[in-house]
């Protein structure tokens, strides 16, 4: 689904944003991309949507060779990839509903159908009541949800989330992560850039770590793909008469983890926040 082979990106200043990075992401996988600021996470996203070209190496998305992709095909590539940008990139002079319908407008969906689809997705992300508000009227978490709604409206095969929990409180962060996790459950490949180690630890997904533009670690998680999760679910269903959905899985996992965290009051508070969010 996504593959980077020996990809490097050197800027005009001579600085390497990423250097010789190689990894691949399978369909339906959930991958965390971590690393300190300036480690090259955003650069990888920008390469995946052909916002920039690598200095060397091969980038493949959905069997498209992104580097060799002709200019007229770029919009087609971008329609297949939902992106939650770090700065959200919501249009301030459009309402949340208009922002959400924008990708549908771009593909030429009829206005009536576009509105119906946008309403549905806004309902899913929980901000339907804010549909007629402008971005400046919304809180950080609500804006993040709006950005997620817009990224998902075209039912993309891949969702790239660039630090979607940055600047959000723990409860809201967990809500956003839960949302992304649910999306992944439905089969969308999710690549999420984050600094939040709490979230990484709780979700236990595959983690690709970058440092100063180099890939330093690629750690497989216990539940790195939607497929694995659904298999686990089936197992769980067999043993549990209750019907644990993703939220409950996350809650269960969270409470398991909570037991492991001893003598760490701060983390306990965050876990409590998470449970509260799940309620």
């Amino acid at each position: 689904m996504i593959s980077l082979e020996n990809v490097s990106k050197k800027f005009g200043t001579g600085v390497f944003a990423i250097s010789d990075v190689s990894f691949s992401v399978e369909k339906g996988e959930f991958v965390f991309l971590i690393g300190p600021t300036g480690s090259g996470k955003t650069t990888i996203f920008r390469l995946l949507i052909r916002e920039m070209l690598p200095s060397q190496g091969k980038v493949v998305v959905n069997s498209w060779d992104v580097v060799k992709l002709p200019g007229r095909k770029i919009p087609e590539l971008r329609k297949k990839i939902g992106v939650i940008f770090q700065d959200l990139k919501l249009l301030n002079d459009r309402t949340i509903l208009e922002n959400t319908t924008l990708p549908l407008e771009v593909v030429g969906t009829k206005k009536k159908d576009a509105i119906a689809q946008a309403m549905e997705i806004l309902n899913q992300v929980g901000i339907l009541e804010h549909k007629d508000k402008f971005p400046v009227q919304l809180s950080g978490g609500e804006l993040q949800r709006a950005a997620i709604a817009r990224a998902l409206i075209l039912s993309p095969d891949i969702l790239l989330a660039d630090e979607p929990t940055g600047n959000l409180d723990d409860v809201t962060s967990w809500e956003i992560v839960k949302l992304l996790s649910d999306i992944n459950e439905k089969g969308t490949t999710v690549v999420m850039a984050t600094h939040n180690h709490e979230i990484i630890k709780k979700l236990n997904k595959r983690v690709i770590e970058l440092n100063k533009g180099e890939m330093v670690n690629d750690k497989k998680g216990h539940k790195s793909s939607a497929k694995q999760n659904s298999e686990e679910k089936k197992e769980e269903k067999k043993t549990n008469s209750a019907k644990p959905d993703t939220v409950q899985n996350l809650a269960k996992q969270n409470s398991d983890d909570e037991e492991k965290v001893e003598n760490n009051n701060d983390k306990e508070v965050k876990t409590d926040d998470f449970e509260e969010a799940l309620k």
Partner: protein
Amino acid sequence: MKSIGTTWRNIRRSPYQAVAAIFVMMLTFLAFSIFALIIFGSTRIVDYFESKPQVTAFFRDEAKPADIEDLGNSLKESGLISEVKFISKEEALRIYKEQNKDDPLLLDLVTAEILPASLEIATYKIEDLALVSDTLKKSTIVQEVVFQKDVVSTLSSWTNALRKIGLAVVVILSMASIFIMVTIIGIKISQKKSDIETMRLIGAGSWYIRWPFILEGVFYGLIGALLGWLISIGALFYVTPYLSSFLKGIPVLPISPVFLLELLAVETVVAIILGAFSSYLAVLRYLK
């Protein structure tokens, strides 16, 4: 339809820029309309004079009708003349009264005695006019020869000059409009740079982004053309009574509504081309 919606939103959200663009377009098309009307009118005047007898000989008061008739006959015998029309003093007075019936002041002091009798002479070929004119001037009973060819050529040169001046003014104003429109659309594109970037990143194609700006240019052009046309037509109706008395007997006014509608149609097409071209230049310049 979506592009039209976006275009309208862009216009509404920056009204001052929209007014500036419409204003400059209006000036261009006002000049276009005014010069079109002047050229149309002057061409009609030239046509009128060309269709009239080309030489008029005014006789001295002492000229006898028999002498005038002899002169007329001798000209006819030359075989160069297509028509000779004698206008007596009385008939000249009748024509004068008819032309100035609305202005009693001009009628009061004029009698048949002070108006000269005349011969209006038309030739088959325009080049024979000079010969006829020379013959008439040699006659002792002729006081003055008005050579219509001079009038026509003077009018023609005026019309040609007007045509050139009009064309130059319209071209200069069109260039100014294009530059101003490129600047205005360019400012709009710069203002929406981040929005455009976002649209591109979510998969919008080049034309999805370009169309609203191009339609905006077309809109400014169309509104400017319509306003310019309406103002010029208003001005034309306002000056029609004055011009009618000035152009007595010359069938120029009122100008046919068909011509006015044709003018509007031409201006509409030019406005679309001008608006689209300017905004396309801006799009190429600022949407790289």
